[in-house]
């Protein structure tokens, strides 16, 4: 579903991603973790080309994301990659319902009534049907993030990317967002998720990637990663995380 081949990315002279080679299979849930500045956000943002890469290639559903293409083609490709941000990035001038229904209408040309109907279903799916008319400013962080997930799902993406979806949330709201993500995973969604929520990783992830210094240093199933990390950096990272 997602394949990184020899991906290198630099910001100026700083190399943020070094020779990334990795795969995410269909319906697989991959959790990416690693210390701050290790390149997790950069990695996940190259998949929908919010960040450019300098060499290598990234295939998404068979399509080379970083190939030369018309902007129209790129927009279409992006619309098929669900992306959830750490800071939600809901559109504050639109209600929850409009946030979800806007892009299907304006990007995909779905009929307005159809899109609104669908948006309501999605809001219901994330437990927020009652908040359809509320504006982001009137919603809690957890609610906003759930709307953001519904908004991404409205484009019917075959895969969803999450960049620390719960790290901007108060602890008591983390659970509600993770619950939505777990349900998604259970429905067979292909997911790549940057997170430090170990419980989530243990329960849901098929594999964990550990990153540091722009490299993927370790790939393992969550059970062995958390109980027997191989790489010294991963061992230190996990012991820091537990304290």
């Amino acid at each position: 579903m997602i394949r990184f081949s020899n991906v290198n990315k630099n910001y100026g002279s700083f190399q943020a991603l070094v020779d990334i080679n990795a795969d995410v299979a269909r319906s697989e849930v991959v959790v990416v973790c690693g210390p701050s500045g290790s390149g997790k956000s950069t990695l996940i943002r190259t998949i929908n080309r919010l960040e450019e890469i300098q060499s290598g290639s990234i295939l998404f559903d068979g399509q080379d994301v970083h190939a030369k293409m018309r902007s129209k083609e790129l927009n279409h490709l992006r619309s098929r990659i669900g992306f959830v941000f750490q800071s939600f990035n809901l559109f504050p001038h639109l209600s929850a319902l409009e946030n979800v229904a806007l892009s299907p209408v304006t990007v995909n040309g779905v009929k307005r009534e159809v899109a609104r109907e669908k948006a309501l279903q999605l809001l219901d799916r994330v437990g927020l049907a009652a908040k359809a008319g509320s504006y982001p400013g009137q919603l809690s962080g957890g609610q906003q993030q759930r709307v953001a997930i519904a908004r991404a799902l409205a484009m019917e993406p075959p895969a969803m990317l999450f960049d620390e979806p719960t790290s901007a949330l108060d602890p008591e709201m983390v659970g509600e967002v993770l619950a939505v993500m777990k349900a998604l995973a259970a429905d067979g969604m292909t997911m790549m998720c940057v997170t430090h929520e170990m419980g989530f990783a243990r329960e849901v992830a098929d594999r964990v990637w550990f990153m540091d210094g722009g490299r993927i240093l370790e790939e393992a199933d969550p059970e062995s990663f958390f109980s027997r990390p191989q790489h010294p950096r991963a061992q230190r990272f996990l012991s820091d995380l537990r304290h």
Partner: protein
Amino acid sequence: MLWDILSIIQDNWLLLLIGQYPNGPLGGFAATLILSVLSIALAFPLSVLLALARMSRSPFLLWPSTALVYIARGVPLLMLILWVYFMVPVLIGANIPGFVTMLVTLVIYEAAFLSEVVRAGIMALGRGQMDAARALGHSYLGAMWYIILPQALYNMMPSILSQFVSTIKETTLGYVINVPELTFAANQINNQLLTKPFQVFFILALVYYLVCWTLSHAATVLERRIARKRAGTTSGTLPVELQPQTLTVEP
């Protein structure tokens, strides 16, 4: 003194209000107002285009728009007016009325200033909104249209109103190229009376002051309201309004 002022107003209110219309061109306060409103109304869309051009990566858009903004901001308005007044007839080979000269000049000048406001408003939104829009598949212009500009322009409303106030004050410069606006009318009255310049120009100042103060005040109120709304503490009316919809939504 007060008596003088009242009697001047009594004798000349129509001239101050609409100039010599219908026997001559529309002038006075009406002309001032029409000139200001038209200027801002035309300058506003132009300023958005200018701002987008200034943020563009294409040198064909970036360079001319940047030059225009720098020139308009770096040159006194009066000079710009004189340029347009003397150069445009030479260029197009025909005379244009003072009103049109003034309008064209003000539109360019205000658009240059407003474009900086628009640009700042867009940049103040931060990268997250554009990222979110692009990630959903919106084109750059689509993202601007549906997501960035509605927010930026809403936040800018007080600045636009302030710019409108400046424009009203700037229309007085139309006097030098004989645009029959309010200042021009006041000067006509002064020329007739000859002996009461203080009284006449006091009236003039008062009218400008009242109009501009009211609008500035409105801008301040608007600014506070927007700041409050951005902080998320909207007045309780919004959820109440939405309640019927919310209820029908429940499965």
